């Protein structure tokens, strides 16, 4: 029985700009079911953070409850972590982000934790455009309680038990667009080539970035009649285009055909190249994005890739005009400027 991953790594693993190999971003061995899509997403997060050369102690990973919310144990073992209450991860991130704006906040949630018990928190954290990455590991079922259909299960989709789901599904990307999200993407756990650049882009986005990742539940929802199985998603996924993420410090070496790509400079100076495949979608237009989502839903296909990006996003700190110095670094003299200042303020109000 393996309780630990061996410490040996490939002797020629590449190091990032900080001199770390990927091992510095790994976590404990997964206790999820073998073949769970969530483990692939964990792997993608590890690779994205390594390739972005983020110092591990500058990341906070937060989650709610569920299979998805167990995963922060399995990645970024050297980062800050908080397993919160079911569906209440956004509140905890909000508090943390308000107190210390210098960390990168990575929220990990599932379809139950987000679309059922956490729907209210999900809606409001989007409204506020909190500067965070919100990854939903979406498998369309409640895996931790034996695989009941979740709120994101498509109508007619059947899990291991075999009964078709009679209810309509919540489309998290559609809901996020409607609620004003500034970065919306969908991906598939089995497609790291797409997922990793999306995670990197989301981490460079200032504001709320949702990635809804379809992540098959091998134990309960990887059946022929399920719309969240490996096979179904592979056959029905249609990418919005190819995403290529170039971090700020990297020289752009790939040659791009003029006109074929959108070049977007992210807030931190990184560059995002978008190669559009889907003709109808303009990822900088919210209405176009919503339309594309609905069209694909009607066709029975799954639209993946970057769906919407607001280049002029203003996150919660900007909106509230909070201090640049993180609140948790302000001491008593900053927060309590003294009697004379109070007198001045009072005088100004007379």
């Amino acid at each position, binding site marked *: 029985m393996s309780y630990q991953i061996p410490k040996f790594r490939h002797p020629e693993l590449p190091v990032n700009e900080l001199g770390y190999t990927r091992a510095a971003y790994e976590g404990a061995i997964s206790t999820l079911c073998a073949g769970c899509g969530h483990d692939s997403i964990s792997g993608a997060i590890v690779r994205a953070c390594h390739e972005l050369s983020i110092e591990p102690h500058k990341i906070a990973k937060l989650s709610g409850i569920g299979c998805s919310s167990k995963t922060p144990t399995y990645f970024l073992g050297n980062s800050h972590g908080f397993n919160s209450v079911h569906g209440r991860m956004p509140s905890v991130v909000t508090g943390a982000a308000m107190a210390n704006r210098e960390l990168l906040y990575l929220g990990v949630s599932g379809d139950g934790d987000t679309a059922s018990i956490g729907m209210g928190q999900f809606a409001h954290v989007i409204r506020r455009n909190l500067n965070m990455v919100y990854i939903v590991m979406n498998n369309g079922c409640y895996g931790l309680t034996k695989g009941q259909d979740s709120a994101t299960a498509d109508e007619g989709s059947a899990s291991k038990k075999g009964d078709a789901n009679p209810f309509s599904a919540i489309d998290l990307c559609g809901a996020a667009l409607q609620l004003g999200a500034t970065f919306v993407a969908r991906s598939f756990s089995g497609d790291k080539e797409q997922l990793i650049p999306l995670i990197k882009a989301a981490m460079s986005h200032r504001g709320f970035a949702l990635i809804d990742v379809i992540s098959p539940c*091998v134990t309960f929802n990887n059946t022929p009649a399920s719309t969240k199985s490996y096979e179904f998603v592979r056959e029905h996924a249609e990418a919005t285009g190819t995403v290529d993420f170039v971090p700020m410090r990297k020289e752009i070496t790939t040659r791009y055909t003029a006109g074929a790509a959108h070049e977007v400079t992210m807030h931190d100076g990184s560059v995002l190249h978008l190669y559009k495949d889907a003709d109808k979608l303009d990822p900088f237009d919210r209405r176009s994005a919503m339309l594309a989502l609905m069209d694909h839903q009607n066709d029975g296909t799954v639209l993946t890739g970057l769906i919407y990006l607001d280049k002029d996003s203003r996150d919660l700190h900007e909106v509230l005009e909070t201090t640049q110095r993180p609140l948790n670094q302000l001491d008593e003299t900053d927060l309590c400027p003294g009697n004379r200042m109070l007198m001045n303020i009072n005088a100004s109000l007379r």
Partner: protein
Amino acid sequence: MKPTDTSNPEYFHKVVDCQYACPAHTPVPEYIRLIAAQRYSDAYMINWYSNVFPGVLGRTCDRPCEPACRRVRVESEPVAICRLKRVAADNKDDIRSRLPEIPQKKNGKRIALIGAGPASLTVARDLAPLGYSIDIYDNQFAGGGMMRSQIPSFRLPIGVLDEEVNYILDMGVNATFDVQVDSLRDILAKDYDAVFIGTGAPRGKGLNLPGLEDARDHVHLGIDWLASVAFEHTNRIGKRVLVLGGGNTAMDCCRTSKRLGGDDVRVVVRSPFEDMKASPWEKEDAMHEGIPIYNNHVPREIVVEGGALKGMLFEKVEAHYDEDGKRSLVPTGEDLVFMEADDVLMAIGQENAFPWIERDLGIEFDQWDMPVVDRVTFQSGNPRVFFGGDAAFGPENIITAVAHGHQAAISIDLLCRGESVAQRPAPRTNLASQKMGVHEWTYDNAVAPDPRYLVPLAPLDKTLADRKMEVELGFDQDTGYKEAERCLNCDVQTVFEELRCIECDACVDICPTDCITFAANGEEDELRTRLSAPAGNLAQDLYVSDSLPTQRVMVKDENVCLHCGLCAERCPTGAWDMQKFLYNVNGTLA
């Protein structure tokens, strides 16, 4: 790339680096697991069937397995395979009841073995249980060949050698010792069905230096001198000894000198230290005993004054390497170096000598006066005459001689049954799942960093005072267990079945050493550039599956796979499984 054909036994065999590197292909991980389980006799018998002299080899083997060990590639030091073999030999019970039975009724075929060294004894061991009548001829007083005459007792106690030689001589083999065979024609005239020549490389090379004639009494050939020490004709040497040469014989000569009165014993070698032929551990052992090694010194003259040996003159050189890596030793131009000496031992190499083989017996000899021998069948131009060990292709080592002996025995058996010696029997293999439960395996799959354990040595002052006292004490059982646990179980193979794979990537994500990739197929050179981790070790194969539903293939770089089984544990469909691959070379006994 084409899908890997795992039905070819050589594919998985090559993954077991140690076994593949061993000339006799001993199933190393299999016996190491038995040592960890304290089943020493079982571990010993696996060795005995494969390499015939586990106790001897556990002390003296050249260990080609160890540089090949996967642990070198993922950590640094190999598993102490050789010394673990000794643990099995030291701790076994009386195994005589487990030796093969020798038929009372013989099969009527008579075989002569010339020389009683490791190659001949292996032939005897393989053929006696099949009912062959075997006559051995040797010019020493007992069996063992160079294992007896050239390996000093402080490395190989006589008792260990006698035990393993006698297992074979006790198989009803008719051995004639103290006899010099001086005509192959006479042997062939005795109507043997086959003759095996395992006479080693018995002639030491000498250097014809100025002054040699006058100093002959104090200049000795290394292997002859070692033999005369072993047979107790020599028990003293001068205080100041120069040993010329950089091979293992030189190391044995200098260490033996130190025990026979040598006080200032020096090894002087032409080449740079790193290029010396001696095994690194034998050089270390000599230096541990306070013997300095002077490298880059080419012997020029033996200095004799008043009819007595005074010492030697050496020219200092530097090694230069050309583009092809070919070395030339260029004099530095400094004055010649003088070193005092009472005795000089020349251990600069040895060669074969067949003055006793008549040249009209159908055996062809090449330009170096070496017999022309088939590298697979070990048959010579005379179909009834076979060669093996150092006698076949020049000086090698014990384990190579054993491997030759096995193959020659197969050839002799085929010949005597009237079959073609070219039709080699296939290796016997077995591939079986090691799965016991969801996350349970029959083998200890946990892998952890763990530096190689050191073999304890007897106190230096005691061993230097007694030529027969063994220097190495061997691992005790506890350390043997710990060292055995360092083995990565490379024979437990990662077997991939593409029809079961759903391409969930779980194996890719869990693999600690990034061995696994799912990618579009391509030619090997190009494919190697697209894998999860650098795959530059071309000596290690890529395991490639057939095409998967997404048109990709699974590619596994065997290079640094830990055989930890996590890919199989994380596989939801059992497409990966850990299966033990047992490979028994095509021996007559296994």
